Protein backbone atom coordinates (compact mmCIF):
# COMPACT_ATOMS: atom_id res chain seq x y z
CA UNK A 1 0.00 0.00 0.00
CA UNK A 2 2.50 2.50 -1.18
CA UNK A 3 0.44 4.81 -3.32
CA UNK A 4 -0.87 7.99 -1.75
CA UNK A 5 -4.51 8.20 -0.83
CA UNK A 6 -7.17 9.09 -3.32
CA UNK A 7 -9.67 11.68 -2.20
CA UNK A 8 -12.85 9.88 -1.23
CA UNK A 9 -16.10 10.45 0.53
CA UNK A 10 -14.96 8.21 3.35
CA UNK A 11 -15.69 10.66 6.13
CA UNK A 12 -19.23 11.25 5.05
CA UNK A 13 -19.69 7.50 4.67
CA UNK A 14 -18.30 6.66 8.04
CA UNK A 15 -20.60 9.06 9.80
CA UNK A 16 -23.65 8.64 7.63
CA UNK A 17 -27.10 7.91 8.82
CA UNK A 18 -26.61 7.90 12.55
CA UNK A 19 -28.43 10.17 14.95
CA UNK A 20 -26.00 12.50 16.67
CA UNK A 21 -26.90 11.69 20.25
CA UNK A 22 -25.72 8.26 21.41
CA UNK A 23 -28.38 5.70 22.11
CA UNK A 24 -27.41 3.46 24.97
CA UNK A 25 -29.66 0.45 25.35
CA UNK A 26 -30.30 -0.06 29.04
CA UNK A 27 -29.91 -3.52 30.50
CA UNK A 28 -33.69 -3.64 30.97
CA UNK A 29 -34.17 -3.00 27.28
CA UNK A 30 -31.67 -5.65 26.27
CA UNK A 31 -33.47 -8.09 28.54
CA UNK A 32 -36.73 -7.15 26.84
CA UNK A 33 -35.19 -7.78 23.42
CA UNK A 34 -34.49 -11.37 24.37
CA UNK A 35 -38.24 -11.89 24.59
CA UNK A 36 -39.02 -10.33 21.22
CA UNK A 37 -40.05 -13.75 19.94
CA UNK A 38 -43.10 -13.72 22.25
CA UNK A 39 -44.27 -10.30 21.12
CA UNK A 40 -46.97 -11.25 18.67
CA UNK A 41 -50.67 -12.03 18.87
CA UNK A 42 -50.42 -15.79 18.84
CA UNK A 43 -47.72 -16.03 21.48
CA UNK A 44 -49.44 -13.52 23.75
CA UNK A 45 -52.77 -15.37 23.53
CA UNK A 46 -51.04 -18.63 24.38
CA UNK A 47 -49.10 -17.07 27.25
CA UNK A 48 -52.28 -15.54 28.72
CA UNK A 49 -54.02 -18.93 28.72
CA UNK A 50 -50.98 -20.55 30.33
CA UNK A 51 -50.88 -17.76 32.93
CA UNK A 52 -54.53 -18.44 33.85
CA UNK A 53 -53.70 -22.10 34.45
CA UNK A 54 -50.61 -21.13 36.43
CA UNK A 55 -52.62 -18.81 38.68
CA UNK A 56 -55.16 -21.59 39.23
CA UNK A 57 -52.35 -23.96 40.21
CA UNK A 58 -50.60 -21.55 42.57
CA UNK A 59 -53.73 -20.31 44.34
CA UNK A 60 -55.56 -23.64 44.22
CA UNK A 61 -56.56 -23.64 47.94
CA UNK A 62 -58.09 -20.17 47.55
CA UNK A 63 -59.92 -20.86 44.29
CA UNK A 64 -61.19 -24.40 44.82
CA UNK A 65 -64.38 -24.48 46.93
CA UNK A 66 -63.57 -27.94 48.37
CA UNK A 67 -60.53 -30.10 48.95
CA UNK A 68 -59.72 -32.36 45.99
CA UNK A 69 -60.46 -35.53 47.97
CA UNK A 70 -63.13 -34.11 50.25
CA UNK A 71 -66.07 -36.47 50.08
CA UNK A 72 -69.72 -35.47 50.23
CA UNK A 73 -71.69 -38.69 50.53
CA UNK A 74 -74.98 -36.85 50.10
CA UNK A 75 -74.08 -35.90 46.54
CA UNK A 76 -72.78 -38.85 44.49
CA UNK A 77 -72.41 -38.49 40.70
CA UNK A 78 -74.41 -35.29 40.79
CA UNK A 79 -74.59 -33.10 37.64
CA UNK A 80 -73.38 -29.48 37.90
CA UNK A 81 -75.22 -27.42 40.47
CA UNK A 82 -74.74 -24.29 42.56
CA UNK A 83 -72.82 -26.20 45.26
CA UNK A 84 -70.75 -28.28 42.85
CA UNK A 85 -70.07 -26.22 39.73
CA UNK A 86 -68.88 -29.17 37.71
CA UNK A 87 -70.78 -31.88 39.52
CA UNK A 88 -69.38 -34.66 41.71
CA UNK A 89 -67.69 -38.05 41.37
CA UNK A 90 -68.88 -41.44 42.55
CA UNK A 91 -67.52 -40.62 46.02
CA UNK A 92 -69.04 -37.19 46.10
CA UNK A 93 -65.76 -35.35 45.38
CA UNK A 94 -66.07 -31.94 43.72
CA UNK A 95 -64.88 -32.22 40.09
CA UNK A 96 -64.13 -28.49 39.79
CA UNK A 97 -61.83 -28.63 42.84
CA UNK A 98 -60.11 -31.72 41.44
CA UNK A 99 -59.45 -29.93 38.15
CA UNK A 100 -58.00 -26.90 39.94
CA UNK A 101 -55.73 -29.02 42.14
CA UNK A 102 -54.92 -31.30 39.20
CA UNK A 103 -53.45 -28.32 37.33
CA UNK A 104 -50.58 -28.37 39.83
CA UNK A 105 -49.44 -31.86 38.91
CA UNK A 106 -49.69 -31.12 35.21
CA UNK A 107 -47.74 -27.86 35.39
CA UNK A 108 -45.01 -29.15 37.69
CA UNK A 109 -44.36 -32.28 35.65
CA UNK A 110 -44.58 -30.33 32.39
CA UNK A 111 -42.09 -27.74 33.60
CA UNK A 112 -39.60 -30.15 35.15
CA UNK A 113 -39.72 -32.54 32.19
CA UNK A 114 -39.45 -29.61 29.75
CA UNK A 115 -36.40 -28.18 31.51
CA UNK A 116 -34.67 -31.57 31.76
CA UNK A 117 -35.38 -32.49 28.14
CA UNK A 118 -34.26 -29.06 26.90
CA UNK A 119 -30.98 -29.36 28.76
CA UNK A 120 -30.30 -32.75 27.19
CA UNK A 121 -31.43 -31.51 23.76
CA UNK A 122 -29.17 -28.43 23.90
CA UNK A 123 -26.21 -30.44 25.12
CA UNK A 124 -26.50 -33.28 22.62
CA UNK A 125 -27.78 -31.16 19.71
CA UNK A 126 -25.21 -28.38 19.92
CA UNK A 127 -22.35 -30.79 20.55
CA UNK A 128 -23.42 -32.97 17.61
CA UNK A 129 -23.65 -29.88 15.43
CA UNK A 130 -20.30 -28.45 16.41
CA UNK A 131 -17.97 -31.46 16.40
CA UNK A 132 -17.26 -33.32 13.18
CA UNK A 133 -16.67 -36.84 11.99
CA UNK A 134 -17.53 -39.94 13.97
CA UNK A 135 -18.37 -37.99 17.14
CA UNK A 136 -21.05 -36.05 15.34
CA UNK A 137 -22.32 -39.16 13.59
CA UNK A 138 -22.60 -41.20 16.78
CA UNK A 139 -24.44 -38.43 18.65
CA UNK A 140 -26.73 -38.13 15.67
CA UNK A 141 -27.33 -41.87 15.66
CA UNK A 142 -28.15 -41.76 19.37
CA UNK A 143 -30.68 -39.01 18.69
CA UNK A 144 -32.25 -41.00 15.90
CA UNK A 145 -32.55 -44.08 18.13
CA UNK A 146 -34.50 -42.05 20.68
CA UNK A 147 -36.58 -40.58 17.89
CA UNK A 148 -37.76 -43.95 16.62
CA UNK A 149 -38.30 -45.56 20.02
CA UNK A 150 -42.04 -45.33 20.63
CA UNK A 151 -42.27 -43.05 23.67
CA UNK A 152 -45.36 -44.30 25.43
CA UNK A 153 -44.41 -48.00 25.78
CA UNK A 154 -40.96 -46.99 27.03
CA UNK A 155 -42.53 -44.66 29.60
CA UNK A 156 -44.87 -47.45 30.73
CA UNK A 157 -42.01 -49.92 31.10
CA UNK A 158 -39.80 -47.54 33.08
CA UNK A 159 -42.59 -46.12 35.23
CA UNK A 160 -43.96 -49.55 36.11
CA UNK A 161 -40.59 -50.57 37.59
CA UNK A 162 -41.29 -48.37 40.57
CA UNK A 163 -44.05 -48.82 43.12
CA UNK A 164 -44.32 -45.19 44.04
CA UNK A 165 -42.48 -43.04 41.49
CA UNK A 166 -41.89 -39.46 42.58
CA UNK A 167 -42.84 -36.46 40.47
CA UNK A 168 -39.18 -35.90 39.54
CA UNK A 169 -38.84 -39.51 38.39
CA UNK A 170 -41.98 -39.27 36.26
CA UNK A 171 -40.64 -36.05 34.74
CA UNK A 172 -37.27 -37.67 34.07
CA UNK A 173 -38.92 -40.61 32.31
CA UNK A 174 -40.93 -38.25 30.12
CA UNK A 175 -37.80 -36.16 29.45
CA UNK A 176 -35.82 -39.24 28.34
CA UNK A 177 -38.36 -39.99 25.65
CA UNK A 178 -38.85 -36.35 24.63
CA UNK A 179 -35.49 -34.68 24.06
CA UNK A 180 -34.65 -36.13 20.65
CA UNK A 181 -36.66 -33.79 18.41
CA UNK A 182 -35.14 -30.69 19.95
CA UNK A 183 -31.66 -32.15 19.65
CA UNK A 184 -32.18 -32.88 15.97
CA UNK A 185 -33.35 -29.38 15.13
CA UNK A 186 -30.56 -27.83 17.20
CA UNK A 187 -27.94 -30.01 15.52
CA UNK A 188 -29.02 -28.83 12.07
CA UNK A 189 -29.05 -25.19 13.12
CA UNK A 190 -25.69 -25.45 14.88
CA UNK A 191 -24.11 -27.01 11.81
CA UNK A 192 -25.17 -24.01 9.77
CA UNK A 193 -24.00 -21.56 12.46
CA UNK A 194 -20.63 -23.28 12.85
CA UNK A 195 -19.50 -22.31 9.38
CA UNK A 196 -20.68 -18.73 9.63
CA UNK A 197 -17.91 -16.17 9.48
CA UNK A 198 -18.49 -14.74 12.95
CA UNK A 199 -17.84 -18.15 14.49
CA UNK A 200 -14.74 -18.58 12.31
CA UNK A 201 -13.62 -15.10 13.37
CA UNK A 202 -13.99 -16.02 17.03
CA UNK A 203 -11.93 -19.16 16.39
CA UNK A 204 -9.28 -17.17 14.56
CA UNK A 205 -9.14 -14.80 17.56
CA UNK A 206 -8.28 -17.77 19.75
CA UNK A 207 -11.57 -18.01 21.69
CA UNK A 208 -12.04 -21.24 23.61
CA UNK A 209 -14.52 -23.81 22.32
CA UNK A 210 -16.82 -23.53 25.33
CA UNK A 211 -16.96 -19.78 25.03
CA UNK A 212 -17.64 -19.91 21.29
CA UNK A 213 -20.58 -22.22 21.94
CA UNK A 214 -22.06 -20.42 24.93
CA UNK A 215 -21.39 -16.79 24.06
CA UNK A 216 -21.23 -16.66 20.28
CA UNK A 217 -23.62 -19.43 19.21
CA UNK A 218 -26.24 -20.09 21.91
CA UNK A 219 -27.73 -16.55 21.85
CA UNK A 220 -28.42 -17.08 18.16
CA UNK A 221 -30.24 -20.30 18.99
CA UNK A 222 -32.55 -18.88 21.70
CA UNK A 223 -35.69 -18.96 19.58
CA UNK A 224 -35.13 -22.57 18.58
CA UNK A 225 -34.37 -23.59 22.16
CA UNK A 226 -37.53 -21.84 23.35
CA UNK A 227 -39.61 -23.56 20.71
CA UNK A 228 -38.06 -26.92 21.57
CA UNK A 229 -38.84 -26.28 25.25
CA UNK A 230 -42.48 -25.48 24.51
CA UNK A 231 -42.71 -28.58 22.33
CA UNK A 232 -41.37 -30.87 25.06
CA UNK A 233 -43.70 -29.33 27.65
CA UNK A 234 -46.63 -30.16 25.35
CA UNK A 235 -45.39 -33.71 24.94
CA UNK A 236 -44.80 -34.00 28.69
CA UNK A 237 -48.35 -32.88 29.55
CA UNK A 238 -49.82 -35.33 27.07
CA UNK A 239 -47.51 -38.10 28.31
CA UNK A 240 -48.34 -37.46 31.96
CA UNK A 241 -52.11 -37.42 31.44
CA UNK A 242 -51.90 -40.55 29.31
CA UNK A 243 -49.84 -42.40 31.93
CA UNK A 244 -52.27 -41.31 34.63
CA UNK A 245 -55.26 -42.29 32.53
CA UNK A 246 -54.02 -45.81 31.89
CA UNK A 247 -53.17 -46.14 35.58
CA UNK A 248 -49.40 -46.49 35.44
CA UNK A 249 -48.85 -43.51 37.71
CA UNK A 250 -50.18 -43.92 41.27
CA UNK A 251 -53.49 -42.23 41.92
CA UNK A 252 -51.97 -40.15 44.69
CA UNK A 253 -50.52 -37.89 42.01
CA UNK A 254 -53.59 -35.85 41.25
CA UNK A 255 -53.78 -34.46 37.73
CA UNK A 256 -56.25 -34.25 34.85
CA UNK A 257 -55.34 -37.75 33.73
CA UNK A 258 -56.20 -39.16 37.16
CA UNK A 259 -59.67 -37.63 36.91
CA UNK A 260 -60.15 -39.36 33.58
CA UNK A 261 -58.83 -42.61 35.11
CA UNK A 262 -61.44 -42.56 37.88
CA UNK A 263 -64.17 -41.53 35.48
CA UNK A 264 -63.36 -44.47 33.26
CA UNK A 265 -63.06 -46.90 36.19
CA UNK A 266 -66.49 -45.97 37.46
CA UNK A 267 -68.37 -46.10 34.20
CA UNK A 268 -68.72 -42.38 33.68
CA UNK A 269 -68.64 -42.71 29.88
CA UNK A 270 -70.85 -41.54 28.34
CA UNK A 271 -73.59 -40.56 30.79
CA UNK A 272 -71.78 -38.54 33.46
CA UNK A 273 -70.32 -36.00 31.03
CA UNK A 274 -69.44 -33.42 33.73
CA UNK A 275 -66.91 -35.86 35.12
CA UNK A 276 -64.68 -36.30 32.08
CA UNK A 277 -65.37 -33.47 29.62
CA UNK A 278 -63.83 -30.62 31.72
CA UNK A 279 -60.58 -32.53 32.24
CA UNK A 280 -60.40 -33.41 28.55
CA UNK A 281 -61.08 -29.79 27.61
CA UNK A 282 -58.37 -28.55 29.96
CA UNK A 283 -55.82 -30.84 28.30
CA UNK A 284 -56.91 -29.65 24.87
CA UNK A 285 -56.90 -25.94 25.77
CA UNK A 286 -53.53 -26.15 27.52
CA UNK A 287 -52.05 -27.98 24.55
CA UNK A 288 -53.51 -25.37 22.22
CA UNK A 289 -52.02 -22.54 24.28
CA UNK A 290 -48.55 -24.12 24.10
CA UNK A 291 -48.92 -24.63 20.35
CA UNK A 292 -49.94 -20.98 19.92
CA UNK A 293 -46.75 -19.90 21.68
CA UNK A 294 -44.80 -22.14 19.35
CA UNK A 295 -46.52 -20.76 16.24
CA UNK A 296 -45.61 -17.30 17.47
CA UNK A 297 -41.95 -18.26 17.86
CA UNK A 298 -42.03 -19.89 14.42
CA UNK A 299 -43.23 -16.66 12.86
CA UNK A 300 -40.50 -14.77 14.65
CA UNK A 301 -37.81 -17.16 13.45
CA UNK A 302 -39.15 -17.42 9.93
CA UNK A 303 -40.58 -14.05 8.87
CA UNK A 304 -41.78 -15.56 5.60
CA UNK A 305 -44.61 -17.25 7.50
CA UNK A 306 -45.62 -13.89 8.94
CA UNK A 307 -45.51 -11.90 5.74
CA UNK A 308 -47.25 -14.67 3.81
CA UNK A 309 -50.16 -14.48 6.24
CA UNK A 310 -50.27 -10.69 6.08
CA UNK A 311 -50.11 -10.69 2.30
CA UNK A 312 -52.93 -13.20 2.08
CA UNK A 313 -55.10 -11.08 4.38
CA UNK A 314 -54.34 -7.94 2.42
CA UNK A 315 -55.21 -9.68 -0.86
CA UNK A 316 -58.46 -11.01 0.50
CA UNK A 317 -59.38 -7.51 1.62
CA UNK A 318 -58.96 -6.32 -1.95
CA UNK A 319 -61.13 -9.16 -3.14
CA UNK A 320 -58.33 -11.12 -4.80
CA UNK A 321 -58.05 -14.86 -4.62
CA UNK A 322 -54.94 -15.98 -2.76
CA UNK A 323 -54.90 -19.33 -4.48
CA UNK A 324 -55.01 -18.05 -8.05
CA UNK A 325 -51.75 -18.67 -9.82
CA UNK A 326 -51.88 -15.53 -11.93
CA UNK A 327 -51.41 -12.03 -10.58
CA UNK A 328 -54.25 -9.82 -11.68
CA UNK A 329 -53.40 -6.50 -13.26
CA UNK A 330 -55.26 -3.93 -11.22
CA UNK A 331 -54.15 -0.68 -12.80
CA UNK A 332 -53.68 0.22 -16.43
CA UNK A 333 -50.02 0.89 -17.12
CA UNK A 334 -48.94 4.45 -17.88
CA UNK A 335 -47.94 5.43 -21.43
CA UNK A 336 -45.08 3.20 -22.43
CA UNK A 337 -41.92 5.28 -22.04
CA UNK A 338 -39.87 3.87 -24.91
CA UNK A 339 -36.37 5.29 -25.09
Amino acid at each position, binding site marked *: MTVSNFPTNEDSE*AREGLPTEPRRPSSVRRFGQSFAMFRNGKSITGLIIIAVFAIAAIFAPLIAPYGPLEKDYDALKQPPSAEHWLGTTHLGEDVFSQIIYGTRGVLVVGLVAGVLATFVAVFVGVAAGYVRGWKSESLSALTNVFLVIPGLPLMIIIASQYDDPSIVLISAVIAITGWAWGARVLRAQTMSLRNRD*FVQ*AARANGEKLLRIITVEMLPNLTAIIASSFVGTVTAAVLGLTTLAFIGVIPITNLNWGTILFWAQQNGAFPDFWWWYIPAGLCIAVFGMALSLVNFGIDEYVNPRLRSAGERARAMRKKGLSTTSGVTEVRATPAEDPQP
Partner: protein
Amino acid sequence: MTTLDFRHVTKQYKVRGAGDMLALDDVSFTLTSGQTIALVGQSGSGKSTIAKILTQLERETTGEVLLDGAPIPKRGKGLRAYRQRVRMVFQDPFASLNPYHTIRHHLERPLRLDKVVPSDRVDDEVRSLLTRVRLEPDAVIDRRPHELSGGQRQRVAIARALASRPELLIADEPVSMLDVSIRLGVLNLLADLQRESNLGVLYITHDLATARHFSDEIMVLHHGVVVERGPSDDVILNPQHEYTRALRDASPDPDKHFADPSGPASSRS
Protein backbone atom coordinates in the same frame (compact mmCIF):
# COMPACT_ATOMS: atom_id res chain seq x y z
CA MET B 1 10.89 -7.14 11.80
CA THR B 2 8.43 -9.97 11.55
CA THR B 3 8.71 -12.52 8.81
CA LEU B 4 6.11 -15.07 7.86
CA ASP B 5 7.34 -17.92 5.70
CA PHE B 6 4.92 -20.02 3.72
CA ARG B 7 7.04 -22.98 2.58
CA HIS B 8 6.03 -25.52 -0.01
CA VAL B 9 2.50 -25.73 1.34
CA THR B 10 0.06 -28.21 -0.16
CA LYS B 11 -3.55 -28.52 0.87
CA GLN B 12 -5.76 -31.41 -0.03
CA TYR B 13 -9.46 -31.44 0.73
CA LYS B 14 -11.26 -34.74 1.00
CA VAL B 15 -14.40 -34.56 -1.06
CA ARG B 16 -17.00 -37.19 -0.32
CA GLY B 17 -17.41 -39.55 -3.24
CA ALA B 18 -15.09 -37.56 -5.48
CA GLY B 19 -11.67 -38.46 -4.14
CA ASP B 20 -9.30 -35.68 -3.16
CA MET B 21 -9.21 -32.10 -4.34
CA LEU B 22 -5.87 -30.36 -4.49
CA ALA B 23 -6.54 -26.76 -3.42
CA LEU B 24 -2.92 -25.62 -3.05
CA ASP B 25 0.03 -27.16 -4.84
CA ASP B 26 3.47 -26.32 -3.46
CA VAL B 27 2.90 -22.64 -2.68
CA SER B 28 5.73 -20.63 -1.14
CA PHE B 29 6.05 -16.96 -0.29
CA THR B 30 7.37 -14.67 2.41
CA LEU B 31 5.55 -11.76 4.02
CA THR B 32 7.44 -9.26 6.16
CA SER B 33 6.13 -6.39 8.23
CA GLY B 34 5.79 -3.15 6.32
CA GLN B 35 5.21 -4.98 3.06
CA THR B 36 2.00 -5.50 1.12
CA ILE B 37 1.55 -8.51 -1.09
CA ALA B 38 -1.51 -8.85 -3.26
CA LEU B 39 -2.75 -12.35 -3.88
CA VAL B 40 -4.78 -12.37 -7.07
CA GLY B 41 -6.81 -15.15 -8.58
CA GLN B 42 -10.31 -16.10 -9.58
CA SER B 43 -12.83 -17.88 -7.37
CA GLY B 44 -11.68 -21.38 -6.51
CA SER B 45 -8.02 -20.66 -7.18
CA GLY B 46 -7.08 -21.29 -3.54
CA LYS B 47 -6.85 -17.72 -2.24
CA SER B 48 -9.11 -18.26 0.72
CA THR B 49 -7.42 -21.57 1.54
CA ILE B 50 -4.17 -19.67 2.02
CA ALA B 51 -5.99 -17.28 4.37
CA LYS B 52 -7.46 -20.17 6.33
CA ILE B 53 -4.09 -21.85 6.71
CA LEU B 54 -2.49 -18.59 7.82
CA THR B 55 -5.14 -18.21 10.54
CA GLN B 56 -4.91 -21.96 11.26
CA LEU B 57 -8.63 -22.46 10.70
CA GLU B 58 -7.40 -25.22 8.36
CA ARG B 59 -4.22 -27.27 8.63
CA GLU B 60 -1.79 -27.59 5.76
CA THR B 61 -1.47 -31.11 4.33
CA THR B 62 2.26 -30.88 3.67
CA GLY B 63 4.79 -28.08 3.90
CA GLU B 64 5.13 -25.65 6.76
CA VAL B 65 4.34 -22.14 7.89
CA LEU B 66 7.06 -20.39 9.88
CA LEU B 67 6.76 -17.19 11.89
CA ASP B 68 10.20 -15.70 12.47
CA GLY B 69 11.67 -19.07 11.63
CA ALA B 70 9.58 -21.08 14.11
CA PRO B 71 6.73 -23.35 13.04
CA ILE B 72 3.23 -22.45 14.26
CA PRO B 73 2.32 -24.30 17.46
CA LYS B 74 -0.66 -26.55 16.78
CA ARG B 75 -2.58 -25.84 19.97
CA GLY B 76 -2.68 -24.10 23.32
CA LYS B 77 -0.99 -20.87 24.35
CA GLY B 78 1.53 -20.96 21.54
CA LEU B 79 -1.20 -21.04 18.92
CA ARG B 80 -3.01 -18.18 20.63
CA ALA B 81 0.19 -16.17 20.73
CA TYR B 82 0.59 -16.78 17.00
CA ARG B 83 -3.00 -15.74 16.35
CA GLN B 84 -2.42 -12.58 18.32
CA ARG B 85 0.34 -11.61 15.89
CA VAL B 86 -1.41 -12.64 12.68
CA ARG B 87 -4.99 -11.43 12.29
CA MET B 88 -7.52 -11.60 9.52
CA VAL B 89 -10.25 -9.34 8.12
CA PHE B 90 -13.04 -11.43 6.66
CA GLN B 91 -14.63 -10.84 3.30
CA ASP B 92 -18.25 -10.34 4.28
CA PRO B 93 -18.88 -7.80 7.04
CA PHE B 94 -22.52 -8.86 7.12
CA ALA B 95 -21.51 -12.37 8.22
CA SER B 96 -18.32 -11.82 10.21
CA LEU B 97 -19.95 -9.90 13.08
CA ASN B 98 -22.23 -11.73 15.49
CA PRO B 99 -25.75 -10.29 15.05
CA TYR B 100 -26.52 -10.82 18.72
CA HIS B 101 -23.66 -8.81 20.20
CA THR B 102 -22.86 -5.11 20.32
CA ILE B 103 -19.85 -3.49 18.68
CA ARG B 104 -18.39 -3.07 22.18
CA HIS B 105 -18.44 -6.85 22.67
CA HIS B 106 -16.71 -7.47 19.35
CA LEU B 107 -13.83 -5.16 20.20
CA GLU B 108 -13.58 -6.04 23.88
CA ARG B 109 -13.17 -9.77 23.38
CA PRO B 110 -9.77 -9.74 21.64
CA LEU B 111 -8.54 -7.07 24.08
CA ARG B 112 -9.47 -9.20 27.10
CA LEU B 113 -8.44 -12.48 25.48
CA ASP B 114 -4.90 -11.37 24.70
CA LYS B 115 -4.73 -9.02 27.72
CA VAL B 116 -3.64 -6.20 25.43
CA VAL B 117 -4.45 -3.55 28.04
CA PRO B 118 -5.34 -3.81 31.76
CA SER B 119 -9.06 -4.39 32.17
CA ASP B 120 -9.79 -0.91 33.51
CA ARG B 121 -8.43 0.55 30.30
CA VAL B 122 -10.44 -1.68 27.94
CA ASP B 123 -13.19 0.86 27.40
CA ASP B 124 -10.71 3.60 26.43
CA GLU B 125 -8.95 1.19 24.10
CA VAL B 126 -12.23 0.24 22.38
CA ARG B 127 -12.94 3.90 21.78
CA SER B 128 -9.47 4.59 20.46
CA LEU B 129 -9.78 1.59 18.10
CA LEU B 130 -13.06 2.96 16.74
CA THR B 131 -11.45 6.36 16.28
CA ARG B 132 -8.54 4.74 14.43
CA VAL B 133 -10.93 3.29 11.86
CA ARG B 134 -12.64 6.70 11.58
CA LEU B 135 -15.83 5.80 13.37
CA GLU B 136 -17.50 7.98 15.99
CA PRO B 137 -17.18 5.87 19.18
CA ASP B 138 -20.30 7.22 20.89
CA ALA B 139 -22.43 6.67 17.81
CA VAL B 140 -21.60 3.01 17.26
CA ILE B 141 -20.22 1.47 20.44
CA ASP B 142 -23.53 0.19 21.82
CA ARG B 143 -25.09 -0.68 18.52
CA ARG B 144 -25.49 -4.09 16.96
CA PRO B 145 -24.04 -4.92 13.56
CA HIS B 146 -27.39 -4.76 11.73
CA GLU B 147 -27.75 -1.10 12.68
CA LEU B 148 -24.60 -0.15 10.75
CA SER B 149 -23.94 0.17 7.03
CA GLY B 150 -21.70 -2.26 5.19
CA GLY B 151 -18.74 0.13 5.19
CA GLN B 152 -19.15 0.84 8.88
CA ARG B 153 -19.29 -2.87 9.65
CA GLN B 154 -16.12 -3.54 7.70
CA ARG B 155 -14.42 -0.76 9.66
CA VAL B 156 -15.51 -2.48 12.87
CA ALA B 157 -14.13 -5.76 11.52
CA ILE B 158 -10.82 -4.04 10.75
CA ALA B 159 -10.77 -2.53 14.24
CA ARG B 160 -11.36 -5.99 15.69
CA ALA B 161 -8.45 -7.40 13.70
CA LEU B 162 -6.20 -4.58 14.92
CA ALA B 163 -7.29 -4.90 18.57
CA SER B 164 -4.66 -7.48 19.45
CA ARG B 165 -1.96 -5.26 17.87
CA PRO B 166 -0.95 -7.79 15.24
CA GLU B 167 2.17 -7.53 13.13
CA LEU B 168 0.67 -9.15 10.07
CA LEU B 169 -2.82 -8.69 8.66
CA ILE B 170 -4.62 -10.91 6.18
CA ALA B 171 -7.35 -9.09 4.32
CA ASP B 172 -9.52 -11.59 2.47
CA GLU B 173 -11.28 -9.56 -0.23
CA PRO B 174 -12.04 -6.85 2.33
CA VAL B 175 -14.02 -4.65 -0.04
CA SER B 176 -15.66 -7.05 -2.46
CA MET B 177 -18.94 -7.05 -0.53
CA LEU B 178 -19.07 -3.26 -0.24
CA ASP B 179 -20.62 -0.63 -2.47
CA VAL B 180 -18.26 0.53 -5.17
CA SER B 181 -18.51 4.11 -3.87
CA ILE B 182 -17.05 3.28 -0.46
CA ARG B 183 -14.45 0.69 -1.45
CA LEU B 184 -11.73 3.24 -1.91
CA GLY B 185 -12.40 4.71 1.53
CA VAL B 186 -11.93 1.35 3.21
CA LEU B 187 -8.81 0.57 1.13
CA ASN B 188 -7.29 3.96 1.95
CA LEU B 189 -8.00 3.30 5.61
CA LEU B 190 -6.18 -0.03 5.37
CA ALA B 191 -3.24 1.67 3.67
CA ASP B 192 -3.09 4.34 6.39
CA LEU B 193 -3.24 1.79 9.17
CA GLN B 194 -0.55 -0.25 7.51
CA ARG B 195 1.76 2.75 7.39
CA GLU B 196 0.98 3.79 10.97
CA SER B 197 1.79 0.41 12.51
CA ASN B 198 4.21 -0.96 9.92
CA LEU B 199 1.93 -3.93 9.28
CA GLY B 200 2.62 -6.68 6.81
CA VAL B 201 -0.51 -7.07 4.72
CA LEU B 202 -1.59 -9.98 2.56
CA TYR B 203 -4.25 -8.40 0.37
CA ILE B 204 -6.37 -11.13 -1.21
CA THR B 205 -8.44 -9.96 -4.14
CA HIS B 206 -9.61 -10.74 -7.62
CA ASP B 207 -9.36 -7.11 -8.64
CA LEU B 208 -6.08 -6.41 -10.44
CA ALA B 209 -6.64 -2.65 -10.44
CA THR B 210 -6.74 -2.27 -6.65
CA ALA B 211 -4.01 -4.88 -6.28
CA ARG B 212 -1.72 -2.71 -8.39
CA HIS B 213 -2.48 0.47 -6.49
CA PHE B 214 -2.16 -0.90 -2.99
CA SER B 215 0.60 -3.45 -3.03
CA ASP B 216 4.32 -3.67 -3.65
CA GLU B 217 4.17 -7.15 -5.04
CA ILE B 218 1.57 -9.23 -6.84
CA MET B 219 1.24 -12.97 -6.73
CA VAL B 220 -1.09 -14.63 -9.21
CA LEU B 221 -2.69 -17.87 -8.15
CA HIS B 222 -4.29 -20.22 -10.65
CA HIS B 223 -5.72 -23.62 -9.69
CA GLY B 224 -3.66 -23.70 -6.51
CA VAL B 225 -0.37 -22.88 -8.23
CA VAL B 226 1.46 -19.55 -8.15
CA VAL B 227 1.82 -18.86 -11.86
CA GLU B 228 3.43 -15.46 -11.65
CA ARG B 229 4.86 -13.06 -9.10
CA GLY B 230 6.80 -9.86 -9.09
CA PRO B 231 6.62 -6.10 -8.49
CA SER B 232 3.08 -4.87 -9.11
CA ASP B 233 3.72 -2.77 -12.18
CA ASP B 234 5.75 -5.49 -13.90
CA VAL B 235 3.05 -8.06 -13.42
CA ILE B 236 0.30 -5.79 -14.70
CA LEU B 237 2.12 -4.06 -17.53
CA ASN B 238 4.20 -6.97 -18.70
CA PRO B 239 2.48 -10.21 -17.75
CA GLN B 240 4.50 -13.32 -18.52
CA HIS B 241 1.88 -15.95 -17.94
CA GLU B 242 -1.12 -16.42 -20.16
CA TYR B 243 -3.52 -16.54 -17.22
CA THR B 244 -2.31 -13.17 -15.91
CA ARG B 245 -2.82 -11.70 -19.36
CA ALA B 246 -6.35 -13.07 -19.49
CA LEU B 247 -7.04 -11.70 -16.02
CA ARG B 248 -5.74 -8.28 -16.97
CA ASP B 249 -7.70 -8.12 -20.19
CA ALA B 250 -10.84 -9.15 -18.34
CA SER B 251 -10.74 -6.22 -15.95
CA PRO B 252 -12.04 -2.87 -17.21
CA ASP B 253 -9.27 -0.43 -17.96
CA PRO B 254 -10.04 3.23 -17.18
CA ASP B 255 -7.41 4.50 -19.63
CA LYS B 256 -8.87 2.63 -22.55
CA HIS B 257 -12.26 4.01 -21.66
CA PHE B 258 -11.12 7.60 -22.24
CA ALA B 259 -8.91 6.94 -25.21
CA ASP B 260 -11.41 5.00 -27.23
CA PRO B 261 -14.86 6.58 -27.69
CA SER B 262 -16.28 3.31 -29.03
CA GLY B 263 -15.16 1.54 -25.85
CA PRO B 264 -17.41 0.30 -23.09
CA ALA B 265 -18.43 3.85 -22.12
CA SER B 266 -20.45 4.44 -25.29
CA SER B 267 -22.83 1.63 -24.58
CA ARG B 268 -23.99 3.33 -21.44
CA SER B 269 -25.54 6.45 -23.03
